[in-house]
């Protein structure tokens, strides 16, 4: 099971955090800080796996991360997940973001926090991998996006008339 998904930038600023287990507000912040600390000091040419820190639950859990330009994508998982499988899942996630935002950058994540969460929700549901197929994820997200557009349309047309 996936315990948490964190995205933060090279300075440790959280860009998105999603916890599938309950932690207190303070613990969540501590986990983000600790994870950043662990991950950021690793070289580029080492492996993408880390045995978990104390906070997120002892030796059973591990961190699997990828580093893209300014952002770290970190998945904290328990022993029932395949390491390489998750590594590719991160890739799928990033590619999906890239498709949805057309050349995703750090700012997209900041300004569309809700959208990022919605995309993630189509991939991972309650800590379980729901969908790994990028086109399927995009279809679902777009179905929801359509509503958004139609709404803007409804709201904006009268205003333009005026």
């Amino acid at each position, binding site marked *: 099971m996936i315990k948490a998904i964190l995205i933060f930038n090279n300075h440790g600023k959280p860009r998105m955090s999603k916890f599938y287990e309950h932690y207190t507000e303070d613990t969540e912040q501590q986990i983000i800080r600790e994870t950043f600390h662990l991950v950021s000091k*690793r070289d580029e*040419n080492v*492996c993408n796996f880390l045995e978990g820190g104390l906070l997120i639950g002892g030796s059973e859990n591990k961190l699997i991360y990828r580093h893209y330009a300014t952002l770290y994508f970190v998945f904290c998982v328990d022993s029932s997940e395949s390491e*390489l499988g998750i590594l590719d899942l991160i890739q799928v996630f990033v590619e999906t973001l890239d498709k949805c935002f057309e050349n995703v950058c*750090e700012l997209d994540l900041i300004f569309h926090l809700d959208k990022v969460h919605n995309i993630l929700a189509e991939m991972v549901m309650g800590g379980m*991998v*729901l969908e790994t197929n990028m086109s399927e994820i995009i279809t679902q997200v777009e*179905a929801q996006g359509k509503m958004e557009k139609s709404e803007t349309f409804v709201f904006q047309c009268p205003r333009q008339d005026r």
Partner: protein
Amino acid sequence: MSDVVEKTLTALPGLFDSQTGAAKITNRLRQLVKSITELTSKHEEENLIKQELCAMKEQVSSPNTSMKQMREIMVRAMYCEMLGYDASFTYIHAIKLAQQGGVLEKRVGYLAVSLFLNEGHELLLLLVNTVLKDLQSTNLIEACMALTVVAQVFPKDMIPAVLPLVEDKLSHPKEIIRRKAVLALYKFYLIAPNQVQHIHGKFRKALSDRDPGVMASSLHIYLQLIRESPDSYKDLTGSFVTILKQVLGGKLPVDFNYHSVPAPWLQIQLLRILSLLGKEDQSTSELMYEVLDESLRRAEMNHNITYAILYECVKAVYTIHPKVELLEKAARCIGNFVLSPKINLKYLGLKALTYVVQHDAKLALQHQMTIIECLDHSDFTIKRETLELLFRITNAQNVTVIVEKMLDFLRGCNDEHTIIHLVGKVSELAEKFAPDNSWFIQTMNCVFSIGGDLLQQDVPNNFLRLLAEGSESKEEDDQLRLYAVESYLTVLKGHTSHLPQCFLQVMSWVLGEYAHLQGSVDRREVIRLLTQLLDQRSVSSETRVWILSALTKIPEGQTDLILHLAERLSSSQDTVLRQQAQELLHLSQDSQLHEWVLPRGAPWDAIEVDSSLSFLDGFVSEALAAGAAPYKPPHQRQEELCEDRALNLEPYSFSLPVSLSSCSITDRQSPTLLSVSSGLSGNSTELSQKAGSSTLILEGVKRVWGKDGYLPQKEATAPLVDEPSAAVQPPVQQEAAERTEPRPELSTRNQDKQQLASSLFVGLGVGSSVSLLGRSEAPPPRFRKKPRPHESSSSGTSEKSSGSSCRSSHHTTDIFLYGSFLEEEPATSKSAFDHTPKSTTANGLSQNKDTKEDKHANTSQIFGGDMVIVRPSTIQDKHPPSESSDLTALLPADLKDLPHSDVISLTSDPSLSLSSCRLFRDEALLLLIFISNCTETVIKDVAVQLTCEELKTASLRGNIVDCLEARSTSVCHYALLMDDPHTNVSFTGTVSYQTQPGHTNTLPFSGTLSTADFIRPLVLTTEEYGKLWLSLSHDVKQNLKLLTDAGDPLRTTLNALKDALQLHVVDIIGSEGIVACRLLSGAPCLLHCRVSGAALVMWLRSPHPALPDCILYHCQRALAHR
């Protein structure tokens, strides 16, 4: 803040213009983010966010805020919460948004809810109706959102409300809905397994769904279910194999391909499921050989994800029943992993090796050069994994090198978690394989100074116990102790300020205990060193206490130093220290007293601890006589507290303490009051987990790798290994060297490595050539611990030692157990009739101590330190008495074989004495009352009258005796039934008799019976149990203490309960056990026990409302008093 952000910010206006409406919504957010990025300090950020939150608070409470604005506020709140600021005032608005808004608002509302709230949050209850409505909605998106939120956060108690709707969704025409419904049900299963028991059939339907996506989701459930009980799903093996075959054969739509690999994640899941199914099961394994082979063959493309599949495949091959060809292929795969230049693959290769070496140690031999390179790898994770691997292949020959490597690593490591983990392993290895005393002590010194105060408490405890208990030979023990003393003196002479407290404590204990062994060293020196420590500021007050007790133990002669010290400390601020200083002062002045209090060289376990504090009896009785209130144990005090708060339904009932059934029913909210003791298990979890893991490994090795089977063929294919290791190593090394280091110019470095390799992998070849049983045949640990005397046996000795202490030691228990201040407590009489054989009685305390001790001796001989307590499985197994007291001899012949309790004296007067005995018949409780004539004359017209309102008398016999001869005994039978469970019931009665005609005497008596007397095992099959479980209405759930003193905590605990309460253990599956019993009147009670951490989660169901409470109560007591 990052430059990138700022650069992009300048380009923002254009970006947002093109996105029209969206830009307006994120306007405020943009401002917020922009201002945050411009800030330089954390403090400024805090201020800004505070302002922002204030503004938001105003906005949300304003009635003019539109839904759309609200949506925007929510996103801002999410942002603030992510940064770690509290925006809890928005929670209720998030729920409102989900309740009232359109689809878009709902989406943001649900998202905010799932981010802000946790499963236990009370506001979630407000969401339940909305979720219900949306689940029924015809709008796909709404239904999807509802399912998502249900799987993310949903209050456990409300699951029954949505369950039928989610179930319906399993047959929804849209696959995405079906898929989400499956995952939601899986989530329900995880948090409340019993709620979804009835829909296992639907899971099967989902598995055979026409849409592969739905099927894939259902694999999550099956992976979990099969992990819990592989045996129940063996029939599905064929299906899983077929699915995997189809996936491999490319039968899935191309959509499922990822980098042209068909559905890789699905394959991974399937392989995991198959390995669980095939574990230790030859016939099931045979079904999957073919598909595993194909999987190995197909996964040859060079992409990350194919390696993921390969890795799972290899693990599966090594987990299931072995097949030679597959093993060879898998071994080759592992080789590819280990030798891969890709670091991720190397990591997995090492992991695979770590897994495999338990079965096949020579695989590590093949890769020794790579392993050694990995030891010096710059990547922390790789190094750690390599050490893990080395830990698995450690034996007596290579232990020094491996431990040295581990310690090297530890010295350069600053991750707390890794240190704790690894230091534990080092001490385990040191204890197991230490070549000599000096090495052992030195290694442990390193462990203590590196691990320091991070160490789990059991490491120093084990070490000290090892020193104290010693082995069989006293000489060896003394040498070890002597060495420890010498080495500690050296350590203490150096710099001590950096030493961890835990190390100082160990040292002072050892010095105090064994410094006298060292003849050459001046005692003054030892005292001086220890006193020096006391003066250091870095030493904690706990350590000071250790040091002072050590000083107390170092005896005679040095009075001046000690006196000086004691005087100095007697004005200390610390009361404990001051007390110890006083003790020190007195003991040092009175050498006789010193000798008596601290006898030198007394054997470790011969020290008798008077746990009953019997020496205080005089004081207590004086205090009582002076009018002090009698002592009440905490449990009872709490009950009384409970009684005060709850309405007492039986105000004038006979029983003095509160009847539990009444209090727990009226006060159901706080069941914790009754289970204080369940928290007692404390830190023993570590131990049990450790034991669990080691047994697991051995189990795997033994079963899978039997001596017969594939072994001979394996030897034929790899004949090298048959020779002794010295002969084997050079060729293998060369081979490996050629592969990894083809350039000859590096030969000197290479030689170093080879040397290291030969020292690391020594003994492996031998091990594997002798037998692949591997580590299970490792030489016996050097430091063999003496079997630890079991707690109960030591209490047993104190019990026998003196009657008075025994009585007082049981006094508290009795009040506790029987809840009444009877003059003659059952447990007291138990020790009085110490040789009466005992069948299981209600209190669960009566164990036949002698046989238990015997068993201990046996098992400890077999298992060394790991003791397994074997208990008789049923009451019937206990044999009838060999030596019997006079009264049990009077049992009617037809009843003699029944399980029965001890004979308890009820009352007596000069002419008559009454005793009772409980016999557990299947259909009733037989209460036998023995009426003994103590006089030399005949007693006439003896009539017994027994009353008890709560019980029903089914039959009685012998209650009127016309004439009781001198010195004879008559027996009166009562068959009793309990219709309504009460925790304890009291009976009262009178005996009337005539010693002289016309002169009637009466003798009142009373006693207590517990529900446990009226409980009988209910024999059921697991299926019957399942059916019955669902049909029962009244349930109670509670966490109980888990007994962790033996190998399998669940089994031990259940056996203890069974012995105490006459339960029937129906089945034990993994970490769960099901147990059944019935009340005599017929009402069944089912118990479902699950191990969760250090606790046993017990769930009881019964048709009778009060029965679960009663049984739970007795379970708690049975466990608390073991």
